[in-house]
């Protein structure tokens, strides 16, 4: 199977302000968030990045989505390098994270058209796709309601739809079900399965083991900015539960009780 994403030796560190040093209780002026991280995702698969808070999952996804630049290394999305051609990568990917918010003042309908325009989607195609996605997620019921007046679940559905207005083949979801009620979370996970069936490549980051076990073909475990293991789900688990494998890896890397 063809590689959709090749991540090679990513390194990313952040300067710590005095305030951050106090919060992190450290004298170090630099925090290494991602340290020589490499992995590969195949076309048409769902790849799950698993790791505790602060492990470097979000930083990795933000580098792949070109929101931030790596200090070293590169990520190649469908043959396009994030380092050499970030604009090219942005047109190929859809990115959904809780950090990306929608403007409260506008309606889902307006925002869909706005982002569709920015992605250069043909008007007719955009209208058809909007009708299909709005119906699927039930957004058509509140398409003309301002984002400010929507519930968290409704907002997440709108964000999800807007992240894929341009029908990208490569989609990145950072903690896609975080903060959602069980019904909305189910809608999102079902949609990820649909996208996989359509042949899309999906990268998700999560710390929910069941989500990875249910959806992912491959899994990578990140601890302290390093990729501890990256393989097919069967290859990683080898007959054991993902939770057990993860905590064994965590103990080995960090030491002590997980």
């Amino acid at each position: 199977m063809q590689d959709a994403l090749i991540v090679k030796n990513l390194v990313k560190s952040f300067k710590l302000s005095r305030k951050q040093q106090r919060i992190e209780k450290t004298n170090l002026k630099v925090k290494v968030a991602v340290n020589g991280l490499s992995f590969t995702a195949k076309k048409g698969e769902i790849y799950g990045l698993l790791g505790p808070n602060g492990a470097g999952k979000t930083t990795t996804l933000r580098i792949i989505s070109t929101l931030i630049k790596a200090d070293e290394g590169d990520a190649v999305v469908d043959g396009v390098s994030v380092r050499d051609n970030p604009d090219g990568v942005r047109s190929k990917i859809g990115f959904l994270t809780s950090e990306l918010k929608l403007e409260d003042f506008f309606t889902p309908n307006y925002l869909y058209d706005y982002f569709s325009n920015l992605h250069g989607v043909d008007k007719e195609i955009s209208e058809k796709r909007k009708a299909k996605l709005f119906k699927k997620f039930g957004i058509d019921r509140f398409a003309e309601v301002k984002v400010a007046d929507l519930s968290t679940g409704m907002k997440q559905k709108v964000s999800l739809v807007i992240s894929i207005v341009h029908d990208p083949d490569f989609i990145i979801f950072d903690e896609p079900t975080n903060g959602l009620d069980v019904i909305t979370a189910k809608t999102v996970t079902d949609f990820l399965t649909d996208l996989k069936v359509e042949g899309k490549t999906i990268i998700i980051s999560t710390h929910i083991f069941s989500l990875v076990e249910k959806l992912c073909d491959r899994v990578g475990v990140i601890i302290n900015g390093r990729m501890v293991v990256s393989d097919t789900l069967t290859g990683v688990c080898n007959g054991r539960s993902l939770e057990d494998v993860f905590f064994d890896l965590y103990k080995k890397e960090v030491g002590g009780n997980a």
Partner: protein
Amino acid sequence: MRNILVIIKKELKRFFTDRRMLISLFLPGIILYLVYSLMGNVMGDVFSADEEHVYKVAINVEEDLYIDSAFSYMAENSQIKFEKVVIKDREEAKAKFENEEIDLIVSYQKGAEGQLDSYQVFYNSTSPESTAIYGEFIPLLSSMSATPIYSVVPTDLATDEDTSMMITNMMLPFLLLTFLFSGCMAVATESIAGEKERGTIATLLITPVKRSHIAFGKVIALSVTALVSATVSFVSVILSLPKLMSGSMEGMDFKLGYGATEYLGVFAIIVITVLMFTVILSIVSTVAKSVKEATSYAMPVMILIMIVGLSGMLGASSTNPVSCLIPVYNSVQCMSMIFAQEFNPLCLLYTVLSNLAVIALGIVVLAKLFSSERVMFNK
């Protein structure tokens, strides 16, 4: 009681340990001090004599004890240069006065039987030169005799239109600059720092749109919005000035003799200034993490703009087009020239070109800032 103290302590800690809060506490006072001090200096400059100018005073008699004494005293004790011109015909003197060939007319009139002799003094309160020599000479003339054996009767020859234009020239550049800046400040901080604060800017940055296009699009949209606000303010000022003046100066008929060219010139300056302010404030808002922080950063810039705006009270201080290359100052100078009906197309051209250069540079900086993760994702 103890609870009240606990609350007081917490509130005071909140106010006096937050840098932004401290700025907002002390900055208004500092601004007032700076603005009033500068206004005092500017007004002093306007009403004091120009030591390089030769003031011409027309008198209608060859010799007069009191006038000559006043001139002698002024020659010995004052730094100003003056020249006495004898013009016996009052109408001829007035014609020369209107042509600005002379700065003051002193006309001696013998009093009728049982009445005091008088000196009629004609000056123009809207002319800095006439006002300066009037201020120097008249107190001297009035004090030349210890006993009241003559009277000094001042007459202001300034027309209502002269007065209207002087007031407009003094007030409008400052008011316009302040309105333009505050109009831009409201929209720029909300649109950029507000989007950063709410996390909606990241949604935009993830699209394949070039950062420079995002920056340019924002600046144009913000400028249009600020321009609408500025135009409303400008029209309001123009419409309200006659009411303000007729209320404060009884009997004054406020009228401005400006034509379409003057208004178009002012509008061109407003447009270019709004664009420049929008770019400057967009940069400030991009660097800031929140609307509140952006407003704090914009305040010192606003003080600077207000100080430059006050220079308009001096009128067009220089006809040298090179001075029209200094951003913001050139807008004030150009407006002053136009309001004083001394329109200089070269100055307007220099103003537009230099401000366009600042705008272009600002957009490049803004695009760089939009590409900087440190700036765009600083929390």
